[in-house]
């Protein structure tokens, strides 16, 4: 054989080399981490890695002879990863989601119905009877359960008792009282209240004014419109007209108001239980008070919190369900509350003596009973992602850039017509 390559040999070599990446691309994805024998993959929020959950994971591993790969992400990164997984078919066994994804992924066929498991084990584990009604509704689609609520949170008014006492101000209960209190508390380097740059913090205001994100009957967004304008204008006025709140700065971080509160630069903020820990840690000297949600046309707060779902292509749904059952047990809820003060979705959790006796948890537990989910209708259109983007633009243009609320909401409604046909 000649030591020289013939043209045909060269072509063969080149063809063979060229087919390597092509074939490897066609060969399909590598096996899912969760599908590997002995491993079980869980996607989790980076801020929710509690000892109480670690204990459950250890028990789960022992009982099922598997190793749990506990992958922690911030929410945006978790979503990016999960959507890439859905596209590749390589999916985790269980996913913690921030609220709203369960119905979105049920609608798109990426989440697995858990109804057969609920039918089998629901009575024994207390699902859905022992879960707050709103949490079952927001995790169901077309009469089937697709997710189980893990945490149930809402926002309340946090206030600095020392500052309010010094100014002779009582914790406000209405919008008018809030404005009055904020005026009295604003002086020197201190703002009466600090608003968040994150648009989801507009939800309590909208709910208190009786505004829904979407009305499927009329296909209108932010309805009733005049109430939506009033709610948005009130928030913008706190910043730009009355100057009792600093201008929020757009970004990915929603801890701005908490940092101001902890630094003694804001007397009141509206936030949830996730800020209890940072305030206690960074400013133990601040005497923290919690007030019930404000009243306008009604008293309301937004139901939020995370849920667990199983991807449709998860290889071992029986194991996934077992994991969900274990980690949502009442004793685990109790341990997580004791550890970090997290709020939980079980009705029986709200009745625990340690919940009722804790001055920083009881106000939340009381409010959870009437917390509302403002975005359920929009989620069921399958367009919640686009709507959320438009809502962010509207909120920031009004509250940060002081654009007239009527104009900004009208622009949102016009854009929404395009994708909510």
């Amino acid at each position, binding site marked *: *054989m*000649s030591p*020289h*390559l*013939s*043209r*045909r040999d*060269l072509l063969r070599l*080149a063809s063979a*080399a*060229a087919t*390597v*990446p*092509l074939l*490897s*691309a066609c060969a399909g994805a590598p096996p899912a981490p969760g599908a590997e024998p002995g491993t079980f993959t869980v996607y989790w929020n980076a801020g929710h890695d509690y000892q109480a959950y670690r204990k459950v994971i250890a028990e789960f591993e022992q009982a099922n002879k598997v190793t749990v790969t506990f992958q922690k992400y911030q929410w*945006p990164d978790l*979503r*990016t990863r999960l*959507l890439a997984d*859905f*596209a590749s078919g390589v999916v985790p066994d269980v996913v913690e989601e921030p609220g709203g994804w369960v119905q*979105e992924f049920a609608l*798109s*066929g990426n989440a697995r119905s858990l109804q057969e498991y609920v039918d089998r084990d629901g009575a024994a584990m207390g699902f859905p009877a022992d879960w707050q009604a709103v949490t079952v509704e927001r995790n169901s689609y077309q009469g089937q359960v697709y997710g189980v609520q893990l945490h149930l949170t809402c926002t309340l008014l946090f206030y600095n008792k020392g500052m309010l006492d010094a100014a002779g101000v009582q914790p406000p209960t209405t919008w008018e009282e809030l404005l009055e209190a904020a005026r009295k508390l604003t002086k020197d380097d201190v703002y009466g209240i600090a608003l968040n*740059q994150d648009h989801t913090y507009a939800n309590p205001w909208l709910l208190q004014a009786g505004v829904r994100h979407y009305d499927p009957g009329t296909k209108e967004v932010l309805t009733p419109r005049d109430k939506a304008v009033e709610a948005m204008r009130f928030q913008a006025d706190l910043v730009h007209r009355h100057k009792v709140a*600093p*201008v929020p*700065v*757009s*970004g*990915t*971080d929603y801890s*701005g108001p908490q*940092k*101001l509160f902890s*630094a003694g*630069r804001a007397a009141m903020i509206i936030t949830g239980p996730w800020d209890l820990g940072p305030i206690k840690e960074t400013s133990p000297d601040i005497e923290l008070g919690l007030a019930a949600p404000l009243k306008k046309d009604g008293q309301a707060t937004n139901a939020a919190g995370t849920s667990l779902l199983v991807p449709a292509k998860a290889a071992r749904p029986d194991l996934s369900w077992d994991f969900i059952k274990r980690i949502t047990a009442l004793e685990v809820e109790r341990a997580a509350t004791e550890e970090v003060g997290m709020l939980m979705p079980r009705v029986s959790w709200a009745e625990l003596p340690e919940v009722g006796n804790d001055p920083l948890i009881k106000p939340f537990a009381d409010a959870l009973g009437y917390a509302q989910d403002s975005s359920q209708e929009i989620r069921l259109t*399958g*367009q919640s*992602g*686009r709507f*959320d*983007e438009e809502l*962010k*633009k*509207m909120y*920031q*243009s009004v509250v*940060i*850039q002081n*654009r007239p609320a009527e104009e900004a909401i009208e622009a949102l409604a016009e*854009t929404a017509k395009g994708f909510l046909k």
Partner: protein
Amino acid sequence: MSVLRPRTLSARYARTAYLFLLPAILFFAAFFYLPIGNVVSTSLMTGPQADRFTGLGNYAQALADPSVRHSFLVTVAFAVAVVAGSIVLGLALALALDRPLRGRVAFRMMLLVPYLTSVAIVGLLWRNILDPELGVLNRSLSAVGLPEQQWLNTHPLLTIAAITLWQSAGYTMVLFLAGLQGIPETFHEAAKIDGADGWHRFWRITLPLLAPTTLFVSVMAVISGLQAFGQAYIITNGGPGDATDLSVFHIFNVAFRARDFGYASAQSVLLLVVIVAFTLIQLRAGRRGEVQY
């Protein structure tokens, strides 16, 4: 089996060159051209799973979409600021550090450090510095009696462009320094003998002979400016409102928040076409302006 030897020396060289190039070609095919092909095919699909054929529907929608147009204009404004700033700042720093200064190596290193730092770290650093209430900048301004600023709210696009310049200035400085050191000193000496002052020498000798470097810097700055993502993602989240909704950030949101991979792919292809067009125009215009002494 036919024995086939290249008939000429140049053909043999060519064959050897192609064989050496083969691994790189395969790498690019696997990790660039196949994914680009995949993006092009996805751009013809619609739905959350990108599984319904829609032909050129996504392209037509993108061309008529005001939010796409807005994000493109924002991106062009950002790229223009970055290109102009890169050239002016990079050249100024290079001219300053091309002189026999004490500690100029240390200065060069200091200016290069931000370029070696990830955009995520730079973004978080500047976000903290610029925080209107708790940031170092406003604390310093008020300490010396100057009015406090809200740059991320009042001039968000200009602010992230300035941060980008701060990060990339060291790199463009190095490029211009290399260009300056490639200009023979004899040209300047001859001009001095002819009575040309420093200003004239800069305009008539330095700047024209730096044209290839300037072209390279501007092409790279346009490409990176049009592809910018981290600044919007880390510092402003595209806001306030949509003031810093850069194209790649917009595409990312369409794909991963709105879950419309087909539409996002179409916008990616359009952006690729725009970047290639800008680059070709710059290369043509730049080469025409090159001078030889």
